[in-house]
């Protein structure tokens, strides 16, 4: 029972990373942009958060007792800023320079992951010593105090997480609502389905694509912040495998059929698979076999969704294509 509880608890904790990543990617893909740079953006978001936190916590007299508000909002602002810059870079290359989206995405991933690894592995630039103090605040913002086994099973599984987990779910629902029910969502979807007819109705395709890519990148970058500050507790940021989580988040978009509400379920399934090897305390070869699970699952999902084609699980019509007015 204890193992089962731990599994569920850790899965819900890890779910946040996938959910932020895939919600961000859904926003982007709905406007017709296939952003393969999500792993890089998640990594850059994590880097931004850590830089912000280091700037704050290393410069106050008593790192053990930071101002709760500043200690949480400075990194969030930095993360969103880094995410926005990464999104801007991606959309500048794909919208304005009309480069191939796959290539720019891969390049952004290489860049983001490399620069993040660089800063996390060299002790010359940043001092991570006090980061875990802030990590505690991330973990216990909403429900302060110790959440122990005195509480019952469901309360611990569902309500022992940091505020970002609930924020991710909130954002996913909000994004789903916006895309489906509002005029803004309609405009975004029309840009993704058929940009030239959207253009002819007076929708500014360039503006919408910039907007969605940047907003998507901002949302995704929060996943990196969460992974390092909350899931990892601010201890040893270099050990986080942000790249593979990022790719799984991209794959989740297909699993969730471009619906953020389904992405919540999908993230949960994927995070169960990803936490299994840790919780079950496998070691050696068996552990690596277990680590394959999320990837195998992704492949199965890809195949199943392509074999059974429903009307609702189609990708946006012009996904991955750059729009150039003169091409018509």
């Amino acid at each position, binding site marked *: 029972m204890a193992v089962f509880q731990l599994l569920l608890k850790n899965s819900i904790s890890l779910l946040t990373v996938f959910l932020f990543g895939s919600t961000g990617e859904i926003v982007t893909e709905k406007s017709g942009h296939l952003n393969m740079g999500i792993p890089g953006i998640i990594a850059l978001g994590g880097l931004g958060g850590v830089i912000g936190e280091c700037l704050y916590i290393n410069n106050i007299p008593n790192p053990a007792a930071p101002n709760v508000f500043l200690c949480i909002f400075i990194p969030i602002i930095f993360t969103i800023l880094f995410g926005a810059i990464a999104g801007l870079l991606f959309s500048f290359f794909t919208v304005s320079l009309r480069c191939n989206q796959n290539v720019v995405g891969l390049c952004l991933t290489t860049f983001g992951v490399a620069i993040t690894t*660089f800063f996390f592995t060299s002790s010359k630039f940043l001092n991570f010593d006090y980061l875990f103090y802030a990590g505690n605040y991330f973990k216990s913002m909403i429900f302060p105090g110790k959440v122990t086994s005195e509480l019952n099973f469901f309360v611990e599984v569902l309500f022992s997480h940091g505020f970002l987990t609930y924020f991710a779910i909130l954002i996913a629902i909000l994004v789903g609502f916006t895309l489906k029910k509002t005029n803004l969502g309609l405009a975004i979807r029309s840009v993704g389905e058929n940009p030239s007819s959207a253009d002819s109705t007076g929708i500014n395709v360039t503006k919408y694509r910039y907007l969605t890519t940047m907003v998507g990148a901002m949302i995704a970058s929060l996943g990196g912040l969460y992974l390092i500050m909350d899931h990892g507790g601010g201890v040893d940021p270099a050990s986080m495998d942000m790249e593979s989580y990022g790719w799984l988040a991209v794959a989740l978009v297909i699993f969730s059929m471009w619906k953020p509400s389904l992405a919540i379920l999908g993230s949960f399934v994927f995070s169960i698979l990803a936490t299994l090897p840790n919780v079950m305390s496998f070691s050696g070869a068996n552990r690596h076999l277990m680590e*394959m699970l999320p990837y195998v699952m992704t492949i199965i999902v890809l195949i199943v969704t392509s074999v059974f084609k429903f009307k609702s699980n189609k990708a946006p019509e012009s996904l991955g294509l750059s729009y150039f007015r003169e091409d018509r």
Partner: protein
Amino acid sequence: MEQVKKAKHNPLFHIVKKQDISLRNKWIIKVAAIGVAFLICAFISMGMGGTFGGFFSKIFNACFVNSRTGGASATKILDLLENTVILLLIALALVPAFKMKFWNIGAEGQIVVGILMCAVMQKYLGPAMNLQSAGMRFLFFVVTFAMSMIAGALWGFIPAFFKAKFKTNETLFTLMMNYIAILLTKVVIMTWDPVKGDIQAFDELTYLPKIGGSQLVLNLIIAVVVAAIIFVYLRYTKHGYEINVVGGSQRTAKYVGINVKKVIMRTMIVSGAVCGLIGCLLLAGEHNNLTSTIVSGRGFTGVMIAWIAGLGPIEIGLYSLICAFITKGSRSVNYNTAFPNIMLSVCFFVLIACEFFVNYQIRSEKIENWMHAKFPKLFKKKEEAEANQVTPQVAKKEGK
């Protein structure tokens, strides 16, 4: 009123597709982009606490200069060449798939599987054969290479099968196959050596023989031969032609009677097989001990090179050389393992951006008009030339 205002508003810049660009101008843009990429890299290394000139001298020294004598170093140059050719080979292996518009991001995984198969052969087949005799040793290598190619081909075939049958998204599929391949290698390593977790070495004789004191020479020769074969395959065979047609338009291909599904699967088998072969070269010729990080992202670098080079063989060669140069050089600039990747991705960004200037042109009517008004002399010659060009055509039309 508002509509009138909007109609009057002209954007300052607009983007025009270039009709055609001369080969010379294209190369000027590309070389300029490479120069800009190097400059940006130098600035980044200055930010990390180096000097501007130091960056270039360090890279140059790391790639060409023997640190003890100060002269040219044969080992370093050979190493650079070998790295170049491996990158070139990876990119070339991807070209058939990319020509077909099949996004094979899985070169990494296909190479890893090739490495794994090569290791299996070295561990089990090597000791079973009498490798002391030259003939048997040759046979061993033939079998090993063949098996690695089969493994790579299988890894490429699986996503291609589903792509051909059900149009499964191949980008993510091949990407996931990468991770599975790497984890599979880890599983094998852990089963063979549960304590240390890495295989130090196999039998000496199962490695590629040394020519002139270095295994890299043979590696280089094989790689060059394979590269030539791929080039011929794409350019001068029926298969190569079919790949081109399928890449151009699947409908056209169907109409001409090409079996599109078969072409997709066959091409990916070829692509994967070459990747498997590269894996074999990497293990038996370059690294000589099995780890899960032998490829270390070179599969992705190959993807970038192939695309940025526009699938052209000469560009692929040039960019491979530059990438090998930067990777090897930047290791000596900063010892952090992630540093070469930062440099590489910065270069790629610049090179991707340069594609825009090859294909498009930024024009600004306002600035052009202003220039015309201010410096009419500058445009006189051009206008005259254009006028001369136009007249014969007009005359022809009128004659008709």
